[in-house]
């Protein structure tokens, strides 16, 4: 079927759906992340709730057509509240055989598979390691397959611009996007405007992409390829103003907000690293805010500069992923010893070593809580959703300044790249962050502590009469002079530990999702929140005595945690590592917690949690 054929459009039926999961997959050069982001942004604007899962290779351009080069973007959108990007996609858009092969296993039985038939050449099949053509060998029998010549239709659609060859065929992602927009009743306007802006310096490309987008939409509209299109009504979100944003965007905004709320400028020292670099990009373009960014020569310099800035009275911030944290360890110890406010972002990825740079994992918890020489306590917080990154960033700064301590902000690849509708808070609802610089030289002692918080004074250079020296050698209590006295060291080690422990009095108690006591309690932290909560909801609907708690504060733990853990017969700790939080909980509370874990570089599926909980119900 081609667009040139005159067809009388059939009266397509509209089917209403509550929730849809689509995955776009193609070569890493096919623009799948862009396609997915455009679909997600439009979906947000039409009022659905949504959750996304970008999944891309570490190589910028792995060999075209190979399994290693497949890039995917999954989006779950719905007319009700959702918290996770979906287990099994209902729809797969696959731009080549490799994309089909590496994703088809995840697609629900009976699901829709749209493929670019033009890409199923012998060469591409061979590159994907397909011995037979999956479009012909019957392996897709349980799916509804739509073989569409996306490339050739795109070439025709853009031919009037004069573009040809690779440049023209590169527009096929917009053709596919237009098609899926029609299929799910989404307007093309937002993407049209986006293309206009993005390519304003290249009119030909601008026009070609627009033509491809519209051609895809019109193709679906005017041919009888799809007999049904689908309606997903607006979600009943809490009234308010929303925007769609990723965890990394929320993180950057949160730290800028903290600067504005505290009246202290933000200094961000960072060295580019996946998946944290977007935070640097976001902050670097905000030079009209009280923000200074510094792309350092290495990870150590990045944190050293942040410590220098914190010493000078800025909010010192450094951001990286696990391998970078490994390099920053000694400097974190320096900030602990000198008791300066500092926030360290770790957007966790698969490890050890270089590991899986673009994949998510939660295996740096021990590193954050324990991973330094000496007794070296720091506060550790972890946002649970992309949007929560904003609020936890402010919270991390509040704790860092109030307690004069480094604070770890543990994000992960899933949160960093995942997007969701974010209810924009009112400025008046944001917390104030109090900052007190010591100014009076009267009786000044660099390590004299606030009796309640145990924080030492923030005495910044430029203050007359407070000239003093700090450093990484052990400090004498109160004076801050170098001291090797054994009892003083013992006292200082305990004071530093006690200062962090006291933060527990200043953080919200754990809230339980579900009933207060019962059979199984699921404990999670960080980006697994959506999957765990959805699983527990499902089990609760089935009548199981299951509830969950999600930790945003990992050091110190909230005061009521131990007591809450005791109220359930069985405690399951679900995390994307081999049981790090589980071990901390067992050590701290002597609770016989069981680890539910996964280390595949991918988030939990809801079904995986459900299955794990069921295994412990009534046992």
């Amino acid at each position: 079927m081609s667009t040139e054929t005159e067809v009388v459009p059939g009266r397509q039926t509209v089917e209403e759906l509550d929730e849809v999961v689509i995955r776009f997959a193609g070569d890493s050069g096919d623009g799948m992340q862009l396609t997915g982001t455009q679909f997600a942004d439009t979906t947000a604007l039409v009022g659905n709730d949504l959750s996304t899962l970008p999944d891309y290779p570490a190589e910028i351009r792995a060999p075209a057509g190979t399994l290693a080069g497949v890039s995917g973007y999954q989006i779950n959108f719905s007319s009700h509240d959702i918290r996770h990007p979906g287990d099994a996609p209902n729809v797969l858009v696959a731009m080549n055989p490799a994309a089909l092969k590496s994703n088809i296993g995840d697609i629900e039985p009976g699901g829709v598979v749209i493929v670019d038939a033009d890409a199923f050449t012998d060469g591409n099949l061979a590159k994907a390691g397909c011995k037979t053509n999956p479009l012909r060998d019957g392996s897709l029998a349980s799916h509804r397959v739509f073989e569409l010549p996306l490339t050739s239709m795109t070439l025709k659609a853009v031919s009037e611009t004069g573009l040809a060859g690779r440049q023209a065929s590169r527009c096929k992602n917009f053709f596919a996007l237009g098609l899926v927009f029609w299929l799910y009743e989404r307007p093309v306007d937002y993407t049209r405007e986006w293309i206009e802006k993005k390519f304003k310096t290249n009119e030909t490309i601008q026009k070609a992409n627009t033509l491809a987008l519209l051609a895809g939409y019109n193709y679906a509209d005017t041919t009888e390829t799809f007999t049904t299109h689908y309606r997903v009504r607006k979600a009943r979100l809490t009234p308010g103003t929303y925007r769609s944003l990723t965890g990394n965007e929320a993180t950057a905004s949160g730290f800028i907000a903290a600067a504005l709320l505290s009246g202290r400028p933000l200094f961000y020292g960072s060295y580019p690293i996946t998946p944290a670099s977007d935070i640097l990009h976001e902050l670097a373009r905000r030079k009209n805010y009280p923000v200074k960014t510094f792309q350092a020569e290495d990870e150590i310099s990045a944190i050293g500069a942040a410590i220098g800035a914190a010493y000078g009275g800025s909010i010192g911030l450094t951001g990286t992923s696990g391998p970078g944290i490994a390099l920053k360890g000694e400097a974190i110890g320096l900030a602990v010893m000198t008791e300066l406010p500092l926030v360290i972002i770790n957007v966790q990825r698969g490890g050890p070593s270089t590991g899986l740079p673009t994949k998510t994992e939660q295996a740096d918890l021990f590193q954050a809580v324990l991973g330094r020489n000496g007794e070296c306590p720091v506060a550790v917080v972890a946002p649970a959703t992309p949007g929560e990154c904003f609020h936890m960033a402010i919270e991390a700064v509040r704790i860092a300044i109030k307690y004069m301590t480094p604070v770890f902000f543990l994000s992960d690849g899933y949160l960093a790249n995942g997007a969701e509708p974010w209810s924009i808070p009112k400025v008046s609802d944001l917390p104030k962050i109090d900052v007190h610089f010591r100014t009076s030289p009267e009786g000044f002692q660099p390590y004299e502590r606030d009796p309640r918080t145990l924080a030492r004074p923030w005495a910044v250079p430029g203050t007359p009469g407070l000239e003093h020296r700090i450093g990484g050698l052990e400090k004498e209590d109160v004076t801050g002079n170098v001291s090797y006295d054994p009892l003083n060291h013992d006292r200082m080690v305990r004071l530093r530990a006690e200062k962090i422990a006291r933060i527990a009095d200043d953080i919200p108690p754990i809230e339980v999702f579900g009933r207060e006591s019962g059979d199984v309690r699921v404990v999670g932290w960080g980006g697994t929140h959506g999957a765990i909560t959805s699983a527990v909801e499902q089990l609760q609907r089935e009548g199981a005595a299951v509830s969950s708690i999600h930790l945003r504060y990992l050091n110190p733990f909230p005061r009521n945690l131990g007591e809450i853990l005791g109220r359930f017969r069985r405690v399951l700790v679900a995390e994307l590592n081999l049981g790090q939080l589980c071990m901390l909980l067992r050590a701290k509370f002597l609770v016989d917690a069981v680890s539910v874990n996964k280390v595949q570089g991918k988030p939990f599926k809801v079904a995986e949690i459900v299955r794990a909980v069921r295994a412990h119900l009534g046992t």
Partner: protein
Amino acid sequence: MSTPKLTRADFASDQTVRWCPGCGDYSILAQAQKVMPSIGVARENIVFVSGIGCSSRFPYYMNTYGFHSIHGRAPTLATGLKIARPELSVWVVTGDGDGLSIGGNHLIHAMRRNLDIKILLFNNRIYGLTKGQYSPASEFGKKTKSSPFGTAEQPINPLRVALASECTFVARSLDTDIPHLTGVLERAARHHGTAFVEIYQNCNIFNDGAFDEFAAKEMRAERMLLLEHGKPMRFGKNRERGIRLNGLEPEIVTIGENGVTEADILVHDERAREQTLAYLLTSLHYPEFPVPSGVFHVAERPALEEVVDRQGIQATAAMGAGSLERLLNSGATWTVGG
């Protein structure tokens, strides 16, 4: 507001100095304390940042703000502090191990960025605090605790590192030549941009007399070359000898012999746009040549922190000052009715 004129004593902290008796660091400390009152910066705006090593204890003894950081990383702290607080006078004190070995990466990048900071590198060509291993500046074949058969390594030339890093002020002085050291420190303080000063410093415990062959007071006239901008490079008790360029090779000539006149002698130009001359001077080693001291190279370039601040001002002028309201509502938004 006028403040009383401070003296050297005002810059001495209450801490007991704990270097070994006879260490060259004492002299450098004394000169720094002497220079501080004259650099035109209020004491509270002066910060000394150091790494690890004997020299890095320096900040404890200066009655200014001070930060004794971790091994090799002083330039990074200084960088963050200077970007955040451009009005401060930031001094980095480091050694040949701290600055050239573990911290080499930071040193070159700090100099390349040209922050308006002063870097004093105390070069004693040995690891003192760890009791006597060779350093990256130790001469080839040097026998130390960690090189009992002599080192197998070519030493690094700190000034060449500075020149290659496009440092805008490159100088060398001596712990024992007090007027010279004072003069170089004053000039470094006045320089706008990164000033790198290598100071030959005697470790009387682990590398005693390392520089005596040419730097001992009675040897200097014959074996050192005092660099002065715009002046011919003459040395010797009666300044009878000089450096002449033979093709691209420097050579020692005697004025009055073989028809050599002062006009044949190379004239120092610390402001030469090209670093060629400064680089050539870094190749002069004893015993083949006198060892140069003074300012090798000076250049003018905007300081990094000024560029950063200018970008902030320009962005604010172009986009308007950011606010919480703007931050929260940037990008595409939609409203869900109540």
